[in-house]
């Protein structure tokens, strides 16, 4: 073990900064590493109410957070998936669940049996075989069962919360464990002349903060990795043309959904994220296809409760830094790359990056092999998310009358990455989806998006024919019934949440009709 602690300096106190800080404080003894976080109250964070992925729970568990307390303090609700509305055509709705569409029969996904039934004139709703989807459709929630034979074990859950409150919660937690937080704005980044590594940051107060390892969580500005170390940017906007978001909270109204809603709009899409005390809303759009004024109009017209503020504008571009770790600087969160929040991947990607840093944590002399491995693994994560997001845009059938701005025609006709073309061809042919070891989005996720956006295979897996059609239909009926019966007995999302972590100050909960 080295003598002096490694000095880690985290720049930026948004969600990524505080998650990284909390992870380091939990993982490293003070004599091993000192962790210091610099943030400026003058610089706002992007957090606007955020939907997450199930992996966040393992991060919280690692810290040892108390789930009901954490949920109370961040106004969190449960999330079982995302409801995509109007993506293929106007009027479409499908749920991408954190789970599967029914249990496999003889090792073959139920989806393949569904395809055969459909081809034989026995059309049924694919969603009716999925426990998490049916729980969503009925606004219900309960924790997954640990009995892996049960249909109630076929899903995972995530949270919808106020990301600003989450960062604040982690800050309290980290500071109570000894994290040193410095309020201040960086005015100068000082490099070591011999190797170009970052030596220190000069703050507006004149203080010079030295460090061995700098974590850039400065958001889109990418002050250290991008602006100072000039790591180039890889532009993905030709495939993901949205470059603006308007965010606005509104009063809680409408269904108290255990899911996030993503509705396709004329120049992008809007999110709706129900929290305990309010609903987070936003419109992600492309400035090439609409104006900010028009976007605000669309956003406000679509709210189901009274707006609580003026819409706030956020500018961005899809893409990422060619390397997330360069010299002694590691960018985490928006400083390393941005993919629009269509599949709630922002916090996940920050979590993965901070997890990878911990697993590949360097000494004072940084071994380039660790840097290479970090960049290799984080690239896999970004690439797999990228193709999946592009699919949502590309796979639409909107006719001109549903596409006044032309965005949807553009994304339908654009050239997509070869990797995605091949995936789509294989799926269209026979519903086959390549399974990866690492990275997000397993076959059930792809099935949800393809079928939900009206891309159906021409053929089905031949193993399905190994069972008679009657026996197959009977098994499918049983599955449907098992899902229905099990969903029926679940508590509603609102009841479950109230029993689990009700915050009496959130009076909107009481006023909401369905509580």
């Amino acid at each position, binding site marked *: 073990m080295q003598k002096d602690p490694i000095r880690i300096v985290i720049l930026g106190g948004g969600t990524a900064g505080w998650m990284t800080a909390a992870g380091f404080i939990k993982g490293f003894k003070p004599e091993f590493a000192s962790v210091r976080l610099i943030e400026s109250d003058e610089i706002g964070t992007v957090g606007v109410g955020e939907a997450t992925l199930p992996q966040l729970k393992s991060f919280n568990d690692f810290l040892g957070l108390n789930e009901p307390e954490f949920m109370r303090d961040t106004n969190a609700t449960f999330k079982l998936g995302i409801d995509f509305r109007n993506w293929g055509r106007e009027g479409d709705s499908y749920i991408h669940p954190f789970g599967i569409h029914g249990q496999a029969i003889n090792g073959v996904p139920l989806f393949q049996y569904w395809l055969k039934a459909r081809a034989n004139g026995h059309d049924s709703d694919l969603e009716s075989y999925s426990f998490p989807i049916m729980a969503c459709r009925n606004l219900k929630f309960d924790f997954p069962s640990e009995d892996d034979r049960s249909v109630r074990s076929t899903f995972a859950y995530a949270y919808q919360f106020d990301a600003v409150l989450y960062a604040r919660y982690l800050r309290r937690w980290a500071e109570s464990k000894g994290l040193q937080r410095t309020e201040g704005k960086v005015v100068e980044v000082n490099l070591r002349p011999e190797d170009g590594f970052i030596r220190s940051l000069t703050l507006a107060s004149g203080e010079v903060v030295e460090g061995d390892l700098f974590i850039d969580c400065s958001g889109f500005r990418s002050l250290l990795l991008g602006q100072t170390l000039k790591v180039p940017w890889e532009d993905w906007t030709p495939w993901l043309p949205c470059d603006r978001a308007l965010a606005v909270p509104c009063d809680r109204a409408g269904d108290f959904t255990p899911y996030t809603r993503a509705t396709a709009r004329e120049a992008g899409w809007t999110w709706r994220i129900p929290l305990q005390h309010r609903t987070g809303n936003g419109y992600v759009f492309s400035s090439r296809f609409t104006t900010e004024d028009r976007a605000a109009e669309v956003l406000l017209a679509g709210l189901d409760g009274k707006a609580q503020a003026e819409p706030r504008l956020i500018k961005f571009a899809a893409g990422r830094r060619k390397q997330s770790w360069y010299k002694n600087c590691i960018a985490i969160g928006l400083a390393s790359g941005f993919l629009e929040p269509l599949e709630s991947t922002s916090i996940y990607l920050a979590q993965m990056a901070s997890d990878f840093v911990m697993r*590949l944590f360097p000494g004072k002399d940084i071994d380039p092999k*660790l840097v290479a*491995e970090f960049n290799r693994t984080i690239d896999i994560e970004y690439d797999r998310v990228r193709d999946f997001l592009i699919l949502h845009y590309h796979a639409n059938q909107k006719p001109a009358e549903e596409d006044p701005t032309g965005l949807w025609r553009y994304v339908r006709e654009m050239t997509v990455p070869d990797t995605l073309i091949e995936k789509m061809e*294989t799926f269209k042919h*026979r519903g086959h989806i390549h399974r990866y070891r*690492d990275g997000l989005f397993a076959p059930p996720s792809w099935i949800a998006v393809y079928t939900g956006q009206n891309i159906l295979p021409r053929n089905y897996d031949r193993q399905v*024919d190994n*069972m008679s059609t009657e026996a197959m239909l009977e098994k499918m009926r049983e599955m449907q019934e098992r899902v229905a019966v099990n969903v029926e007995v679940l508590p509603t999302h609102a009841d479950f949440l109230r029993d689990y972590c009700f915050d009496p100050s959130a009076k909107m909960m009481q006023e909401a009709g369905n509580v």
Partner: protein
Amino acid sequence: MSDHPVKKVVIVGRDDALWLSANVLWRALGQSGLDITVVELPSLLRPGDVYPTLKQQEAYHNLIGINEGPMMKASHATYTLGQRFNNWSKTKPPFIHGYSTYGRPLNRVSFHHYWVKARAQGLKAEFEDFSLNAVAAKYGRFFLPGEAVDGFAICDYAYHLEAQGYCHVLKTVALDRKIKHVSGRLAEVARDTLSGDITGVTLTDGQAIEGDFFIDASGAESALLGEGLDVGFDSWRQWFPCDRLMTTYAAPLAPLPPFSQVSAFRSGWVGLYPLRNCTAVQQVYTSHDLTDEAAYEAAGIFTSLKLNPDAVVTPFTAGTRRRFWEKNCVAIGEAAAVLDPIDSVRMHVNLLGLSHLISLFPIDRDCGIESTEYNRNVHSSLERIRDYQLCHYVLNQRFDQPFWDHCRNIEVPDALRYKLDLFEARGNLVVYDDETFEEDDWLSMLLGHGLIPKAYDPLADQVSDAEAIQHFQKMLGFIKAAVEPMKPMEETLGIVPIRA
């Protein structure tokens, strides 16, 4: 839905690849209206030939519907908890690659990082002492994994199968299922002049068997894919210098060791695989260094066994066909890839191909989408197996012997170089897509050969030494307590009467 649906599949081949293909295909698609015909070519097996397997084999017996007990009896089979590697270093003791997890993680950090740290501080315990399988094997004890180890370790087993007996079992099951069966010698592979597809095969007795889709299970000669469709062979000789496999057998060992033993010698290695009725011997070496006659002499000396003098030497070149699925033909097993015999992967290569084939079984004779996906998946899997096998040769510590000195200097593929470099630098193990060997398989092999990381995960330092020592003692204590009451394998096999 399809213009030219695949209705009739013809499996041409012999032995393991043939009968596994027939059974797996029948199980997956036999009731689907698919017509399956087996064309059996003369067997190449001889008494005493052995199929050592990997731990994945058991799952396929369940899939195919084979009853393990009777199958094992008919194949004179034994279980194996791992492989023991002997003499791969001139200075280090042998090690066992046990088919189980090694140690338990602590504080989200893999166990091996703590072990690397503790060794540097003077710990005496070997890495294998933390594998239930390896310890049981070392003491000559056997257990059927899953009984008392849940929650502590994940343990598996593999088999040593007497090849003729095993193929007989597979064949009997297939014929009981009324799979159509023709036997003979292959005379000709007929192709469509326009599409180039295979349309049928003709046997020397004049029988012609037509089909829509063909499985080449003919072994290394690759009669359909290689000979019939001219798919070339990529040699892996630059990585695997051995070119001879000598097989023979000796009297059975008593008691039966619950593991196989792979011992390096001057010009290659010799493997012992215990069976109930004999001890199968495979010697793999380079003909540049050793004549076939000298090889037989050497095997006798190195194994200290009286070997059956009727040994067979088979020349081979490790490598793969450029594609495994071409037009309407898929090659399964050695017709697709001849791998070096180290690590007993031959049976697994059959199953690897079959599992991808059934999930991509073609709908139409036009199956370009399936073949592209299949070739990519199988290719990638074979490369990962190759990387694992290669490590044994590259990491040897037999200095001052030309063959082994050469092996240490083999230029390994980039993906493996990357993996070895990162592991050596920091103990982090890269696990790629399509790996057959899992993290603990890699760790036991790399550490066993003496590739000890120069540094470990600093998170291991976040646990106090006292806590780590306690963790170690708990694991060692658990393993000791679990192994002590275990009995020799004969008891599980029911081949030695239990005395009161």
